[in-house]
């Protein structure tokens, strides 16, 4: 229940030893009762409140007494009151003149003694005001203004309560307001220009949060908020999300546990985290449904549903690193642990991306290394050392061979080099000294390369010769064609005469 004034009443009399006033309804269990009393006898009057239902009253602050107007005021309260019919009595100890009693039941408040204030404004004013400072919220302030002149009072702050039509010509008015902030709370009234006496008490609402120690509970309904997060310095933190339209509740616990439960969210965010140096993450408009958990110590768990994630990120331990990804459809869950264990289990993903890594990788095929074994005037080249070793084993003298059942089938060489052919080519290309050097080398790989070069040169020379022959033949043909054209030009006048002679015969 929110703090509120549940009921209130007033009574005034000309000259009394005591005044009693009953609440018209039973008091609610746990309520506070705020009592305000005035009297016109003297400043030494002692105010004493009691009731017939076990109320334990204490005066709040000191009483005030306006000697120019011969009127004083005091207030007090009983906390955590028992339920039931209650009649409150104020006893002045003497026949107090112009006595008053105001009783207010304040429900939904704690049993903490309220912060309070008492004020005597002896200089005439039309806007009397009083203030007190609360350190917890929500809270409810209850105030009363008592004027020394005739005329109605209205409340500028809060809600007006009940009016007091005093016997002495004094008028009074109660006011109250539930506040949800801490700090100075003021109650201002408006009335005739005269002197005023005011009192104020601020009661802490029961069940309110904001405590430095103790516990806090938050329960929220379906909201449209944003964000969800849980962090725990020690202990555990867990977030579980269902489907919502972003809403949330947050919980943070320095020690102990914190839990957040959220409904379906639509989240768009950008963030950057860097231990040292700089890191940046830029995300586009994403539709992310998920949960996250971070734990410095203890455990962290993330459980995600089917997400659609479009993101790019970069992370580098030392130096620079960049990752650029296209729009992917990623579904899964992940976990990270600085120490301890970490497990990632992902569902069906379609990652697409590009990346660089330090080190060197040489594509196979272009300069493949071969391993040679010489057999007489031939060199057998194999792709692997094991194949070459097997070939050497097969060439061992019979006595050194392994038993039949341990023999392996000799591998097929990838290439065979015929040394007489190589020598012929080397001689033709004036490369015999180099060939002799390579023949005495520790392996035959360079010899194989040299042979390939000789072959390439020979192929080039052969194709060059063929091309030269083709060019020479084409030149001869062109010369013959030119000779015929010149001969035809020389015969052209003679042919013209023969043509004229033929026409004359007809």
């Amino acid at each position, binding site marked *: 229940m929110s703090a509120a004034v549940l009921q*209130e009443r*007033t*009574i005034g*009399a000309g000259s009394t*030893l005591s005044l009693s006033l009953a609440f018209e309804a039973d008091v609610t269990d746990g309520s506070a009762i705020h009592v305000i009393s005035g009297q016109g006898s003297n400043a030494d009057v002692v105010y004493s409140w009691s009731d017939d239902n076990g109320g334990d009253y204490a005066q709040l602050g000191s009483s005030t007494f306006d000697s120019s*107007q011969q009127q004083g005021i005091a207030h007090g309260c009983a906390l955590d009151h028992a339920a039931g019919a209650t009649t409150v*009595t104020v006893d002045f100890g003497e026949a107090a*003149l112009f006595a008053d009693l105001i009783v207010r039941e304040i429900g939904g408040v704690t049993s903490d003694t309220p912060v309070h204030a008492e004020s005597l404004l002896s200089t005439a004013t039309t806007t009397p005001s009083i203030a007190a400072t609360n350190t917890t919220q929500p809270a409810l302030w209850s105030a009363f203004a008592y004027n020394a002149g005739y005329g109605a009072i209205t409340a500028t702050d809060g809600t007006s309560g009940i009016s007091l039509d005093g*016997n*002495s010509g004094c008028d009074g008015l109660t006011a109250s307001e539930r506040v949800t902030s801490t700090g100075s709370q003021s109650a201002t009234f408006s009335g005739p220009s005269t002197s005023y006496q005011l009192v104020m008490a601020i009661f802490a609402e029961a069940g309110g949060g904001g405590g430095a120690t103790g516990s806090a509970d938050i329960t929220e309904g379906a909201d449209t908020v944003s964000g969800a997060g849980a962090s725990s310095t020690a202990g555990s933190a867990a977030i579980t999300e269902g489907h919502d339209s972003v809403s949330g509740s947050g919980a943070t616990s320095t020690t102990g546990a914190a839990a957040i439960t959220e409904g379906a969210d639509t989240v768009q965010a950008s963030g950057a985290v860097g231990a040292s140096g700089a890191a940046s993450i830029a995300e586009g408009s994403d539709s992310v449904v998920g949960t996250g958990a971070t734990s410095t110590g203890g455990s962290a768990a993330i459980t995600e549903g089917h997400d659609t994630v479009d993101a790019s990120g970069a992370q580098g331990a030392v130096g620079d690193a960049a990752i650029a990804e296209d729009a992917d459809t990623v579904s899964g869950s992940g976990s990270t642990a600085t120490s301890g264990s970490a497990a990632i289990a992902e569902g069906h993903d379609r990652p697409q991306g590009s990346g660089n890594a330090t080190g060197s990788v040489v594509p196979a095929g272009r300069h493949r290394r071969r391993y040679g074994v010489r057999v007489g005037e031939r060199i057998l080249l194999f792709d692997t050392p094991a194949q070459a070793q097997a070939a050497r084993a097969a060439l061992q003298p019979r006595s050194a061979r392994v038993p039949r059942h341990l023999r392996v089938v000799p591998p097929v060489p990838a290439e065979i080099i015929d040394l007489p052919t190589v020598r012929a080519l080397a001689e033709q290309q004036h490369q015999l000294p180099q060939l002799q050097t390579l023949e005495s080398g520790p392996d035959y790989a360079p010899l194989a390369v040299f042979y390939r070069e000789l072959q390439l040169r020979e192929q080039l020379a052969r194709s060059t010769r063929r091309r030269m022959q083709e060019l020479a033949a084409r030149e001869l043909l062109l010369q013959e064609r030119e000779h015929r054209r010149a001969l035809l030009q020389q015969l052209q006048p003679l042919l013209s005469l023969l043509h004229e002679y033929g026409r004359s015969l007809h």
Partner: protein
Amino acid sequence: MSQTLLTLPQQLYAPGTYGPFVTASLTPGATGYRVNYATDDSYPTGQTEAVLSYAVERSDDGGATWRPDAAVTLGGGPWYTDRTRSTQTTSGQIRVGFQRSAGSNTLLRATLTVYRACTIGGTLEDLP
């Protein structure tokens, strides 16, 4: 407009209890009531001594059930007309406000308890 609900004749009352005196029905919507009382010069003096008390009960069901409403204990005189005590008086008032205004079956009943013999009398009227 006020309505007089009960009249207590002004006379000398010996110590004892008088009543209860049940009023007529209050005006529906009445916001409270007022007791006008009067005495004479024989009224006891002595600021700390209780002379009489006047207790009022309320019924909202025509008198079937009653709840305490208010009570006043008067001490000895003198009484004054104003806070500055410039003028003494032999009359006074008690004003009581309701939280819940009177209904059509609201009644009051008053009981006078006299501790010290005194002359007293008065009326009880509701407040609009």
